[in-house]
């Protein structure tokens, strides 16, 4: 039972990260590879502020979101260029850069040794412990995320993003400052990913850089693609599937290290297969 709750919590946490990623890829058409790094920014900010400076977890999470917001606008800089390839390259670099910082700024992050003993989350003085507690907390964070994303996507702001995804020149000609919209999309997406990361840090209570690599960005990408871009439900469905499948693999009985490799191969294959045969994802409509 605890095991099932654990899986559900993970599905929720990665669902938050995937849903925020979908704002960029699915709604705004901005291909960023840096999303796992923002997830990491939230995780490390919460971990360090609660562990070293005794900050209340909510404040630490908020600080993480602020840092992620600032860094997101840096990633957004190259989106001034119309060609999306510049954005891919720069976001790729930012992902690697942040990972390098997590790994090598050992004075701050203890590098590969990671940060153990992260205090549990607490809201208004009440500590969250046990799986059930975290399920509730995750659901609350999920609800917040969905609320924010719905507000953004169903608004005139969201309509402009949809336009940018299809033809940003046309949108610019209609008098919209496309760059501003792109930067804001990045800021919202990055902040929400950071929130997911903060939750992750408190739940697993030990983090190391290896949870925030390019592999994780690919995992999030997979969740969005499989679930369906440009739908609100899609990323959650995708996260459920992509968290669920490796767990099912467990029952096949592969040795531990092989399992991790096979899991990654599966994600890679899923991306290719879906792009070829069902690009709109499970929840998406045929374009």
């Amino acid at each position, binding site marked *: 039972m605890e095991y099932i709750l654990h899986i559900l919590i993970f599905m929720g946490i990665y669902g938050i990260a995937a849903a925020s990623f979908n704002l960029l890829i699915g709604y705004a058409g901005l291909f960023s590879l840096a999303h796992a790094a923002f997830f990491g920014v939230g995780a490390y900010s919460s971990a360090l502020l609660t562990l070293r400076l005794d900050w209340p977890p909510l404040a630490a999470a908020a600080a993480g979101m602020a840092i992620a917001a600032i860094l997101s606008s840096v990633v957004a800089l190259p989106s001034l260029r119309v060609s999306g390839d510049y954005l891919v390259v720069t976001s790729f670099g930012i992902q690697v850069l942040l990972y390098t910082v997590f790994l090598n700024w050992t004075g701050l992050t203890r590098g590969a040794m990671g940060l153990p003993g992260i205090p549990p989350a607490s809201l208004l003085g009440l500590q969250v412990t046990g799986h059930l507690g975290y399920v509730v907390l995750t659901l609350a964070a999920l609800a917040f995320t969905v609320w924010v994303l719905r507000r953004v996507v169903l608004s005139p702001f969201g309509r402009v993003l949809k336009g940018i995804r299809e033809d940003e020149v046309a949108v610019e000609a209609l008098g919209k400052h*496309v760059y501003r919209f792109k930067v804001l999309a990045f800021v919202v997406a990055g902040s929400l990913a950071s929130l997911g990361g903060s939750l992750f840090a408190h739940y697993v209570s030990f983090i190391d850089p290896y949870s925030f690599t390019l592999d994780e960005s690919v995992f999030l990408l997979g969740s969005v693609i499989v679930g369906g871009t440009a739908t609100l439900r899609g990323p959650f469905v995708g996260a459920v599937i992509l968290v669920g499948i490796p767990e099912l693999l467990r029952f096949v009985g592969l040795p531990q290290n092989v399992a991790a490799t096979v899991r990654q191969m599966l994600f890679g294959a899923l991306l290719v297969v879906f792009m070829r045969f069902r690009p709109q994802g499970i929840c998406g409509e045929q374009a």
Partner: protein
Amino acid sequence: MGVILEARDVSKAFGGLRAVNGASVAFAARQITSIIGPNGAGKTTLFNLLTGFVAPDAGRIVFEDTDITGWPPYRVAIKGLARSFQDLRVLTQMTVLENLCLARPNQAGEQLLANFFSGRRVRKQEAAERERALEALEFIRLREKADEPAHRLSYGQQKLLVIARLVAMDAEVMMLDEPTAGLDPSMIERVSDAIRRLVELGKTVVLVEHNLDVVRALSEEVVFMNEGRVLEVGPPARVLSDRDLINVYLGLSA
């Protein structure tokens, strides 16, 4: 009628090619002006220069007595100078009405935070903008298509939609890039009619056109361009019967 838009001695070169070479032209308010000339004359480049899509190497663009040289396109559009594209650029993944709602200026809902802190005000304004958008749709007499996905419109209807977008933008000066290209006569008449009615609304219209019948029927003034320069400006009767210019247009002389 005063001059509302002016290009003063503008030049633009792409690599070794001088697309626009010291062109000067003034557009009078509240009338229809057509820009004509052989292919490669620099008409589209001039369009791009006037609307901010390309920055001139030299010269100035003045709109409503403001120097807008080097302004980015969105800023030019907000100021009231809007353009259409030869390849339409209709947003096919939205409905017709959404295309027009998108074009509405000054929407509070496009400020991200307004959606969280002044939700009610945004919703009220959205309803008002929707009405304005429907009026723009009414202008091109396609109100019944409001909720159709834009890609389901015929080519001619999309060309009308592009004009409706400019109306929805509340633009003062509307620059249309080949608005009747590829249309059958009945559709050409519908588009021409819409353009005439734009001026009745008090708008200024500048056209790039190859269809000389349309030019003759609609324009009060014709600007003839060749090789990046303005060769002649005048009423269509004069410009279109100038033997020398006709030869240039047909490529019979330099």
